[in-house]
Structure formats: C-alpha cells, structure tokens
C-alpha cells in the first residue's frame, strides 16, 4: 500500500482520499463564485455580442421573428454598406482629425502647465490647480449657449475648429492635472544637474522633463483622445452639415442605402458600431493599466 508507505515516510501528509475530497469540496465552494463571475461577464459582454451578431446577419434574417441568436448565413454586406456610406466615412475621418488635434494641443499646453504647476512655487499656484480640478466636473451644458454665440461670432460655426476649440474645456483640465501629478513624482536630480550645466528652464523642460514623463503623456493623451472621440453634445450643436459631423453624430443620423423612413437599417448601424468599437476595445485592453493610472490620479486625489 503506497498510502501507508507514504504516511510512514512523511507522517504529516494526509491520506490521498481525504486530500481529493478536500480539493473537490473547495471546488464546490467556488461554484457560486464562478457562477457570479460568469453572470458578470455575460452581462458586460452580451450587448457587444448582439451588435456583432446583428452586424453579420443579412437583412432577410435580421428582420424576422423568432429572432435567431446566431446568423445562419453570416455576411459582410452590412460592413460593406456602412463603409461605403459617405457620411459615416466622413464622420470617422472628422472624429480622427478632431480627436487627434485635441490630443496634441492638450498635451502641448498641458505639459507646459504641468511643469509650471508641478515644479515651481508661485502665488496662485494652488488656486490654479483647484480651478483645473473643479473644471473636470464642469457641466458642459452650462456654457453651451455662450460657446454657441462665441463660435458664431468668430465664424467657426459648422467647422471642425469649433469642436477642437470647445473640446479643450473637457480635456485640458484633466490633462493638466495628470501631468502635474507625473511631474511632481520625478526626482529633482536630473533637472538640477541640467541647471548647473547652464540649461534654461525651457531647455530643461523639453530635453529632460518631457522624455521622463513619456508614460504620463501616453496616459493623458489616451484619456484626451477617448474623451474627444466620445463627445456628442457639442458635436451635435456646433456642426450642421453631414460633411462636418463627427462619427458620434453620423451614427445617430444613419438613414441607410435605401433611405427608407419605415425601416431603420439596423444591420448597417450595428456594423458601424462594430467598426467604431473594435479599435476602442483593442486600445483599452492593451493600455488598460495606463488608463486606470490616469483615472485614479484624477479621482483619488479629488
């Protein structure tokens, strides 16, 4: 009997049968937990599954009851229709232009401001910091009318510039805040060495500090890009013609190939949502740590 031999050799080890039962008991104990985990995953994932499923389902199957949970004749037709829709393509391009410009501008302004706020002591420094922080919870709607008049007055209405300009209000404060936190966390030695070598503050900024806060720039840039990419209220209010719409506005005004008022082209709309969603899913999964670091820098200190 090996069990006996084992116990004889190593008296503390329990008999095999008992060990197994303990293991299975632990497994059974974990069942409710695993079930809960499964429910959470299904809850989060199902709407995405449904969008994918609908995007690949041909219209004839899509508008039929009872509903099929998996397309029996999967097709790329909806993707083809969405991508040949000039308004949707234009929307994607406009969103990319606006979000890209907003990100670059916010990082440029924000890193300079972050350097000043994170490194130098001056009067009004904490006032400036608090102003930035309180603006991260600023209701955009509160200045809609004034921005609308301002944009009209300077003839930016229905241009992408209007969006780049107005998005600063939602992006810049958080960018400044995050970059200030990152600047503060850097050791002073390198800067001091550079100053001793006769560098000016501006030289120190872009030759020493900027490379060091590269991770901060990625984090802040990501958050800025996502915020600009998601925006809807200003995009809806400050642009008028489809050639200036961003993708969020374009996706709400889909009329489809036929342009029929009776049947909303859901297959095409779902294909469009998948096209917009997939890059975001990949981006979030890949850079999850960076995003969370930025969000908690914004939230925990609040």
């Amino acid at each position: 009997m090996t069990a006996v031999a084992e116990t004889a050799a190593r008296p503390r080890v329990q008999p095999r049968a008992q060990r197994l039962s303990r293991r299975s008991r632990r497994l059974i104990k974990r069942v409710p937990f695993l079930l809960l985990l499964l429910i959470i995953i299904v809850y989060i994932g199902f709407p995405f599954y449904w969008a994918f499923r609908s995007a690949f389902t041909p219209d004839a199957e899509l508008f039929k009851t009872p509903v099929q949970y998996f397309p029996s004749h999967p097709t790329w037709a909806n993707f083809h229709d969405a991508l040949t829709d000039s308004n949707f393509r234009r929307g994607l391009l406009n969103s990319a232009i606006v979000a890209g410009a907003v990100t670059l501008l916010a990082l440029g302004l924000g890193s300079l401001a972050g350097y000043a706020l994170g490194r130098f002591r001056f009067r009004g420094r904490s006032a400036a910091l608090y102003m930035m922080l309180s603006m991260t919870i600023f209701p955009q709607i509160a200045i809609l009318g004034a921005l609308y008049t301002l944009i009209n007055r300077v003839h930016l209405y229905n241009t992408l510039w209007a969006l780049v300009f107005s998005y600063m209000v939602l992006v810049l404060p958080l960018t400044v805040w995050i970059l200030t936190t990152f600047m503060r966390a850097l050791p002073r030695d390198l800067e001091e060495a550079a100053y001793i070598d006769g560098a000016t503050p501006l030289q120190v900024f872009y030759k020493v500090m900027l490379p060091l806060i590269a991770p901060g720039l990625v984090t802040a840039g990501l958050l800025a890009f996502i915020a600009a990419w998601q925006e809807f209220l200003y995009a809806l209010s400050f642009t008028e013609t489809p050639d200036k719409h961003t993708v969020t506005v374009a996706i709400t005004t889909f009329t489809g190939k036929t342009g029929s008022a009776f049947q909303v082209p859901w297959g095409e709309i779902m294909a469009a949502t998948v096209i917009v969603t997939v890059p975001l899913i990949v981006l979030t999964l890949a850079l999850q740590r960076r995003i969370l670091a930025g969000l908690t820098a914004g939230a925990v200190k609040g």
Partner: protein
Amino acid sequence: MLGPALVVVALVALYPLGETVYQSFTDKSFLGLGGTHWIGLENYTNLVHDSIFRKSIVTTVKFTAITVGFEFVLGLVIALVVNSNFRGRGVMRAVMLVPWAIPTVISAQMWKWMYDDVFGVFNDLGRRLHLLHHSVAWISQPNTSLGAVCAVDIWKTTPFVALLLLAGLQVIPKDLYEAADVDGASKLQQFWRITMPLLRPAILVALIFRTLDALRVFDVFYVFFGNRVDTQTMAVYDQNTIVTVGNVGYGAAVSVAIFLIIAIFVVIYVTFIKVEEQ
C-alpha cells in the same frame, strides 16, 4: 509656461460662464430680427412657471437616483467578486473598462436595437421564457421608457464604478482580515466592520462623480427620445432651447438653473463628508 493653458481655459470656460450669466438677463435670440435687450429677471420668472422644465428636473433627478443607486450596489458586488484571488483577474479588470471606453451614443444605439419592439432580443427572450405575452415597445411606452434608458447607463457605468471601488478595496491591508479571522469574526461581520468603513473614501468619490455625471446626462436620452417632452432631461431641454429653437437668452437662464441644481448636490455631498469627519 502656465500662461497658454490659462488663456485657453479662460477663453473656453471662464468667459463663456460669465457670458451665460449675462445672457440669462437678456432676450438674445438667433431668430430675432431686433437686437438683444436687457430684460432683467424675466427669463427667471418664466422659468419658475415653466412646467416642461420642471418635468425635465423630475426626469433627471429620477434618472440620477435610479442609476447611481444601482451602479453603486452592483458595482460593489462586482468589485468584491473581482477583488478575490483567481486566475484571469487582470483580464477581467481590462474587460470591465471596455464599456466605459465606448461612446455613449454607440452603446445607446446598441441597446436601442435590442429594445426593438418587433425584432429586438429582449422581446424575443421575454416571449421564449414566457415572461411576456406580447411585444413591449420599451422605449416609446411611458411606463418602461425611463427604466429602459436607465438600464443603458447602468450597463455602461457599473463596471467603471466597480473599478473605482476595486482600487479602494486593494489598499485595505490584508492583515486586518487575518486578525478578524483569528478573532472568529464572520465574513459578514468583516464586511460591515472592516470593508465598508475603510472603503468609505472610495465610495464617496464614486458617488460624487456619478451623481454629477448623471445630472448632466444628454447623449443617451437624445438618442432614445430626441426632444420628446415627457422624457427630456434638463440638458436635452436646454440644448433644444438654445440650438433648435434659437432662444439663447432663455436657454442661458436654464443653464444657470442647471448649474445651481448641480451645485446644490455638491453642497449636500460636501456637508455630508464634513459631518462624517467630525
């Protein structure tokens, strides 16, 4: 160095804020042929008697109470589940961030299709499981429309609330639970006596952020209902007044009112925190 950022902030936020307050005392309009006149408090007296605006306040506050409540409770459950040790926890955390990254307009469209009164998956599931005898027009029926719109926000934001709470859970020292185990405290006691008190700061941050966010909700309501009067939020009503109707002066008064209503909530939270601290 701070200069450029401050100039932009002043131009894009502080100046418009002042301008909004000024406009709220005028009859500025984009339709108007005549100029803009100072009309004193007229916009505000009209606002007090504006039943549509009052209705929009009720809708917004209801939406806020329902969504923040559900997001907190569900978010806490999810945070506790994900906080325990299991393989794939990192993946799970990443997955939870995905709904947050999707534009609200997109998730609203995804759900709008699931709610479809003929071909929607909810009606189909309901019929298959014999919960429904006939199809429900979830979005257009007055008794289900608010619930339908809340469900979208809850779906999108609960995982994010869970992540905020998870960050709070992870800084609670493990040895507290070990000590409690030694003392023979049950899991439930540990939850109420250790987890909840130490999680309080994270809970407050999550609640404040979510409340302020919910009070200015626009996207999901606009996609679901457009400007339908019985299901407007404050922000939808304001946007409609300013941009569609072109009544900038009155819209500015609505903006100021929204700003004040949100400020009231901030004051409530801040006093609550101060009372707690004493």
